[in-house]
C-alpha cells in the first residue's frame, strides 16, 4: 500500500469508529480488531505488516484526529517486541493483546546487583520443581516494576554450563507473593527504578520463552531494541487535537503512571533545548569562550542527529555497510549530555549552586547537572558500547576471557 492509500483507509476507519466517549479498553479492543493497534506487526499477529514509513502515516493520521492509539510507553514495548520475535503462538496470543490494550504493564528483570555491565553473569536461580519454575534472586534497575503486572526475566537454569548457555528467558507474573518490588532512589532524588526480590516465586512451565538455555540470545534482542530507543531519545509525542472526553482522562492516568519514571530523562540528556535561551537570557552568549563551547555542543548534537539519519537511510536502502547506529548513538548521547552539562554550568556560573523550583528553569538546570551521569551508564555503559563498536563493527580482536567454563566456577561478586 502506498502512503495515500493508507491515509485514506485509516482516515475512513477512524471517521467511522473513533469517539472519545468510549472507555479506553473498549476502544483499544476495537483497534486490535481493526488491525490498527500495531500496524507494523505481522498480519498474523495483530498487525498489518507495515514498514516504518507506512506505520508513520498511520500515526500521523491518529495524531491529526486526536485518536488514542495502543499503549506504548514504558518497558511494555520491550517485552512486546521480544515476544513478537521469540514467543510461542500461545504466548503471543495470551500476552500481546493486553499489552496493546494497556491492561497489562510490564517490567524488565535483567540487571542484578552483582551483574550490571556483565548481564550474562546473572545469578538469579530458576529451578524446575514439579513442573513449575521456582525463582530465587534479586534484580535491580527495574523501571516501573512496582506497577507491573508481568516481567521479562533472565534467570539461570544451569550452573554447570558456560555462563551464556545456562540462562533462560521467562515471562513472570509480578502479582504474586514471592515477588517484591522496592523503589530505589537515585542521586537526583527521583526513584524511577526498583529493586525486585524474588523468593520462591513461581512461573508456570509454559512461560519459559524460546526454550531452556536460550535466554542470552533472546535477551540480546531485547537489549538491541532498548539501545535503539536510547539512540532515538524517547520524548512521548503529543496529539495535535484538543483532547476532551472521558477516554482522555483514562489515558492521562495511564500516561502519568507510565511516564513518571521518565520525567527526568530529558534532563539526563542534557536539555540542549535550554542552552541558547539561557545563554541569551543570562548574557553568557556574549562570552567568546562560552560561544565556542555552545558551538561544540551543536556540532556534536547535529553530528549525532545527521549520522543517525544517514544510518537509517542506509538501512532502508539495504546497504551492506555496517553502521552501529545503536551503540554510536548511545555513546554520542553521553558525550552530548556531558558537553551540555558543561555548557549549562558555564552559563549559570554560581547560580548553578541553586536547585529547586526557585532556581533556573524551575530547577531543570540543576536536575540536568545531577542527572547527566546516568546517560553514560543506563542501558549499557559507555565502556560496553565502546567494546561493542570496536569488536562488532571494527572487527578488532576480543580480549582473552576470564569467564569461560562452568558458571559455578567463575569468579563473581559476593552479594
Amino acid at each position: 500500500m502506498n502512503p495515500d492509500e493508507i491515509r485514506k483507509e485509516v482516515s475512513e476507519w477512524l471517521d467511522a469508529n473513533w469517539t472519545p466517549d468510549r472507555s479506553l479498553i473498549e476502544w483499544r479492543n476495537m483497534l486490535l480488531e481493526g488491525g490498527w493497534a500495531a500496524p507494523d506487526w505481522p498480519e498474523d499477529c495483530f498487525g498489518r505488516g507495515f514498514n516504518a514509513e507506512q506505520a508513520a502515516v498511520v500515526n500521523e493520521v491518529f495524531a491529526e484526529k486526536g485518536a488514542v492509539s495502543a499503549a506504548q510507553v514504558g518497558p511494555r514495548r520491550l517485552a512486546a517486541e521480544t515476544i513478537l520475535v521469540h514467543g510461542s503462538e500461545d504466548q503471543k496470543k495470551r500476552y500481546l493483546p493486553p499489552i496493546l490494550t494497556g491492561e497489562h504493564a510490564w517490567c524488565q528483570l535483567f540487571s542484578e546487583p552483582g551483574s550490571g555491565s556483565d548481564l550474562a553473569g546473572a545469578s538469579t536461580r530458576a529451578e524446575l520443581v514439579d513442573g513449575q519454575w521456582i525463582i530465587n534472586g534479586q534484580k535491580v534497575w527495574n523501571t516501573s516494576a512496582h506497577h507491573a503486572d508481568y516481567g521479562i526475566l533472565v534467570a539461570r537454569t544451569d550452573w554447570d554450563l558456560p555462563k551464556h548457555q545456562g540462562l533462560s528467558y521467562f515471562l513472570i507474573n509480578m502479582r504474586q507473593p514471592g515477588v517484591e518490588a522496592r523503589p530505589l532512589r537515585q542521586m537526583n532524588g527521583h526513584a524511577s527504578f526498583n529493586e525486585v526480590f524474588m523468593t520462591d516465586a513461581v512461573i508456570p512451565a509454559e512461560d519459559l520463552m524460546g526454550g531452556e538455555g536460550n535466554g542470552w540470545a533472546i535477551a540480546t534482542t531485547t537489549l538491541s531494541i532498548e539501545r535503539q530507543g536510547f539512540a532515538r531519545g524517547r520524548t512521548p509525542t503529543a496529539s495535535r487535537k484538543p483532547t476532551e472526553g472521558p477516554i482522555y482522562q483514562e489515558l492521562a492516568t495511564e500516561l502519568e503512571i507510565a511516564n513518571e519514571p521518565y520525567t527526568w530523562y530529558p534532563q539526563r540528556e542534557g536539555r540542549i533545548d535550554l542552552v541558547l535561551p539561557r545563554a541569551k537570557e543570562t548574557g553568557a552568549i556574549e562570552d567568546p569562550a562560552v560561544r565556542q563551547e555552545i558551538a561544540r555542543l551543536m556540532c556534536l548534537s547535529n553530528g549525532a542527529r545527521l549520522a543517525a539519519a544517514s544510518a537509517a537511510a542506509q538501512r532502508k536502502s539495504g546497504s551492506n555497510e555496517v553502521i552501529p547506529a545503536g551503540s554510536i548513538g548511545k555513546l554520542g548521547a553521553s558525550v552530548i549530555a556531558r558537553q551540555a552539562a558543561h555548557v549549562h554550568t558555564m552559563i549559570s556560573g554560581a547560580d548553578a549552586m541553586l536547585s529547586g523550583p526557585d532556581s533556573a528553569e524551575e530547577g531543570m538546570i540543576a536536575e540536568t547537572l545531577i542527572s547527566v551521569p546516568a546517560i553514560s551508564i543506563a542501558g549499557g555503559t559507555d565502556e560496553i558500547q565502546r567494546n561493542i563498536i570496536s569488536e562488532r563493527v571494527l572487527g578488532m580482536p576480543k580480549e582473552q576471557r576470564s569467564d569461560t567454563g562452568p558458571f559455578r566456577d567463575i569468579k563473581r561478586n559476593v552479594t
Partner: protein
Amino acid sequence: MQIEYTEDQEQFREVVSRFLQAKSTPIDVRRLMASNEGYDQAVWQQLCGEVGLAGTHIPEEYGGFGFGPIELGIVSEEMGRHLYCGPFFASSVMAGYALLNGATEAIKSAILPDIASGDRIATLVLDNLNNPEKVGSVLKANDEHVVSGTAPIVVDAHIADLLIVAASTSDGLGLYLVNADADGISIKPEEALDPTRKISRVSFDGVSSERIGGLNEESLNLTWDQICNALAHEMIGGAQHLFESTVEYTKVRVQFGRPIGSFQALKHRCADLLMELEFAKAATHHAAFCLATSEGEPFAASMAKAMASDTYMEAARAGVQLRGGIGFTWEEDTHLWYKRAKSSEVFMGSAHMHRERMMKMIEIAPSHNTGEQP
C-alpha cells in the same frame, strides 16, 4: 619555591584528619544535609574549642592560632575529604578574611575573637560569586550606611549571627556589619544543588548598618585569592577521597569473571586522573605557599582554583561512572561528593573565569614564570 610541609604541619594535618574522620562520617553528613541547620552544634563547638580550628589563620592577637594559608589549606583539604558540614568556610574563611583585609582595627579586635572561638558565626555577603570584578554591582550603601539590594547566594546565612556585607558606595566597596536579625533583612533558605553546604538568598531592604571598613581592588583580590586557596584545598581533599575510593572499588568489583580494575580502559582512566590530581594538588599547595610568602606567580590562586574545579569534577564523573548504576544511587555516598564538586566548580569563579583572570595577571606582569622548561 618551597613545596614541602614541615613536620609540624604534617602533625597538624593528622590531628585535623583524626577529628574529622570521627565526627564527619558519611552518616553524619547525610544526617546534617537533611537537617535545616546543616551542622552539628556540638561538633562545631568541639572543632572550635578543643581543636581550635576556626581560628587557624586568624592572628593570635585576635584570638586565633596565627597560622597562615598553608595550615588553613591543610584544614580545608581535610574538611573537603570528609565533606565536613558546618559554618567553617562561611565564618572563618570568608568572613574572617574579609575582616582581616578590610575592617578597622577596632572591629577586628571586637569580632575576630568570637569567630575564632566559634562563639559567633559570621558570613560574608557578596552580591556576586562569579568574579571579583563584579562584586558591588547589586548591593549598595548610601552615605548613611543604609544597605539595599539582594545577594542571591550567601553561604550559611541561615545560621549566621553576623553578616559582613560588601556593598558599593560613593567611595568604592565598603564593608558593613549587621546583625542577622536586623530590621529589613530577609534571609530565605534556598534549595542547594549541594545540600551539604547551605545557602540563602539575603535581601536588604534599606538596612541600617555599621560601616566597618572597605576593600579596594587589591584587598578584594587578595581576599578572593585567599578564599579560593582554601576552597581549592577543600576541593582537592574531596577529589582525593573520590579518587581513592573509586580505585579501591575497581579492585573488588567483579564483572566478566575479573575485577573491573583489571580492564585497561578503567586503568588508563585512573592513571590519567592520578596525573591530573597530582598536578592540581601540587598547584594548590603551591598557591598556599605563594600566599604565605607573598612570592611566586600572582596567578597561583586562580590557577589552583581552575585546576581544582576541573579535577574535582573529573574525579566525580569517574566516581559515578566506574561504579556503574550503583554509583548513581542515593544509597551510595559518591553523589555527596559529586554535588560538592559541581557546586564548588562555580563557587568563587568557574575554571573559565579563573583562566581568564590568570591571563590578565600575566599580561600585567609578563616576565612571570609561565611554566616553561628551564
